[in-house]
């Protein structure tokens, strides 16, 4: 038995080294494959890997380099595990850039403990905490998702436009939930709304009766749930519906997902929400390019494609795969001036850059990086109609 194990291990090692071709660039894909957003991450990873495959197939990255994705689990919530996973990617796998992480807390931890000390570029598709805007990053951190400071503003506008002036607010007790709740509360109150209660809930708990009791006692026209659709957020909504405390809700990005339709459907008729999204032609092209391979409209999936594409285009622009060289090029390829690049046109973009031209990467989410390297933010406003998430408009 022991011998067999040794032999297998040895073979695995050998194949491993045989595959680790010097010619390939490795990119880390670090997302929470387990944990509170585990139902979103598979299509996010597929989105990122699609961009890498597209570039590899084009054979135009720095004279035909292949791109190899290496997945790692950020767990979304466990900073220690995420840091260890990222450390492995950088030191053992030798990745040249990281597409990730997903949740704000672990993203901050990986940035501070792994990316900055090792000088690796990180582009997160979904970390939206306002705190990350001011994090110490040596110019290594970008995100294709907008900061929640912006989402808070949009949310306040959506609610006030519908004449909802009093809401109860609950958030998942982590960097994402707290950041979003705070930015929403200040935006909403400065525009004349009232938040009757601002209460945290913990994810993955057995029972949310106590939380819903407090929220119901405070009252409000609508309940704003800044949580996760696979986690406590769903528990809160279920308990609020069952006890008749609230009939309609407002959902920010973490709550928008297929699971929301599946679990609640017509029970939450008339509820509203918003999540990063755009009506730019890029989104449709992305859906078309993906086909049936995975769910291209799942939240943060287009952002993931864009994050990976930006890393690769920046490498091409810098003529180097070293993060220290290409980190300054990310903003250049993402923003004007230059030829607009949509999903499926990465090969063309690589050509233009190689020819000394300029590109303005639009991608699937109308990428426009502002300030400290974060998306300016386009949102899709949704409403539950006949149990389905339907688009109201883009803003």
């Amino acid at each position, binding site marked *: 038995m022991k011998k067999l194990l040794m032999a297998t291990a040895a073979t695995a090692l050998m194949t491993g080294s045989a595959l680790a071709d010097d010619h390939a660039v490795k990119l880390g894909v670090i997302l929470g494959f387990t944990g509170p957003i585990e139902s979103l991450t598979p299509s996010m990873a597929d989105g990122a890997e699609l961009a890498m495959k597209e570039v590899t197939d084009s054979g135009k990255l720095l004279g035909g380099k292949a791109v190899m994705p290496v997945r790692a689990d950020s767990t979304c919530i466990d900073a220690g595990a995420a840091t260890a996973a990222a450390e492995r990617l950088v030191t053992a796998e030798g990745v040249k850039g990281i597409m990730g992480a997903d949740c704000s807390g672990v993203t901050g931890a990986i940035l501070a403990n792994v990316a900055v000390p090792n000088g690796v570029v990180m582009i997160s598709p979904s970390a939206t905490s306002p705190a990350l805007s001011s994090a110490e990053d040596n110019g290594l951190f970008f995100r294709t998702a907008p900061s929640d400071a912006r989402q808070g503003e949009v949310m306040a506008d959506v609610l006030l436009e519908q004449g909802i002036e009093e809401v109860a607010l609950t958030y998942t007790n982590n960097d994402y939930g707290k950041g979003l709740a705070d930015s929403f509360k200040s935006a909403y109150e400065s525009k004349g709304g009232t938040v009757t209660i601002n209460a945290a809930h913990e994810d*993955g708990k057995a029972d949310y*009766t106590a939380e819903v009791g*407090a929220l119901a006692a405070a009252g409000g026209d609508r309940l704003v749930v800044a949580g996760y659709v*696979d986690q406590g957020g769903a*528990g809160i909504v279920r308990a609020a519906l069952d006890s*008749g405390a609230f009939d309609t809700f407002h959902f920010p990005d973490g709550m928008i997902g297929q699971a929301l339709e599946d679990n609640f459907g017509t029970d939450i008729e008339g509820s509203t929400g918003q999540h990063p999204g755009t009506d730019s032609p890029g989104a449709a092209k992305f859906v078309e390019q993906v086909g049936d391979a995975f769910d291209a409209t799942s939240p943060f999936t287009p952002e993931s494609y864009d994050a990976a594409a930006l890393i690769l285009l920046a490498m091409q622009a810098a003529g180097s795969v070293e993060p220290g060289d290409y980190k300054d090029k990310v903003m250049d390829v993402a923003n004007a001036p230059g030829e607009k690049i949509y999903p499926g046109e990465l090969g063309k973009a690589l050509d233009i850059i190689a020819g000394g031209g300029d590109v303005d990467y639009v991608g699937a989410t109308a990428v426009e990086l502002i300030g400290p390297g974060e998306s300016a933010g386009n949102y899709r406003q949704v409403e539950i109609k006949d149990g389905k998430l339907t688009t109201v408009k883009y803003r």
Partner: protein
Amino acid sequence: MDFLNAIVALSNFVLIPAVAYGSQLALGALGVTLIYGILRFSNFAHGDTMAFGTMVVVLFTWWFQSMGITLGPLPTALLALPFGIIACAALVIGTDKMVYQFYREQKAKPVILVIVSMGVMFIMNGLVRFIIGPNDQRFADGERFIISARDFKQMTGLREGLAIKTTQGITVVVAVIAVVLLFWFLNRTRTGKSMRAYSDNEDLALLSGINPERVVLYTWLIVAALATVAGTLYGLDKTFKPFTYFQLLLPIFAAAIVGGLGSPLGAIAGGFVIAFSEVTITYAWKKVLGYLLPETLEPDGLVQLLSTDYKFAVSFAILVIVLLFKPTGLFKGKSV
């Protein structure tokens, strides 16, 4: 009228949910306490045993639903329950034969068995995720409400609604039946008595000819039944997700310890103490007081003793207090 509104609001948000949650915890805690009393270790795998049993119930429910077999207004899961119990019993007895029996024969210390049960927990954890996946699964069907908040308002003309879910009703009824059966079994049957004898004094029990392996077997059977019932009721009432069952372990242990480990009566009391303390101490009394007090005294704030963030702190504070002043729990269990 206002007085009625206050009562209704309180029952809707505190009493009814806490009773249902308390029953679920009590059933879970009974399983933990039986294992502690008879097999003499804290079974950390209990939450995942519940998840496994429930998973089988979920799978059978889906199968029945696809064949068009339902129970009318009752959830189909009740029909699938026996299959879940059988599968769960097979799993725990298999685990016992493969793992725990070895340590029992070695007369391993309880602390070693606790660590072993942790290993078992992780394996079961993985097994459940492997079979059904880590996501939320819904399997509740039939009538959702015995009475819904909206109907209640229309019927009574009160401003507050009172919702009683079918699952909450079933939870309480099934819990009462399970507890009555368990106590009848432990107190009246020969096997039950031999289990209690084995629990009280192993050596004397062995001397009087009680077959220890038989006692262990029956314990696991009962535990599997309790775990599956508790897990299914919980899943019906809320939702089935492997991760939450793992998290359920903490309140269950708190309940078992507060009540007194090894004491079935204590497990039930502990379940309700934990459930009520989580809900009542963090309840915002604004609405209820608003109905009760004259308008001039109506509170502006939420009148909340503690923010809901601290609800777990409440149950664990109770745990600490009980352990400090009554280490054997409320109902003389074994000291921890």
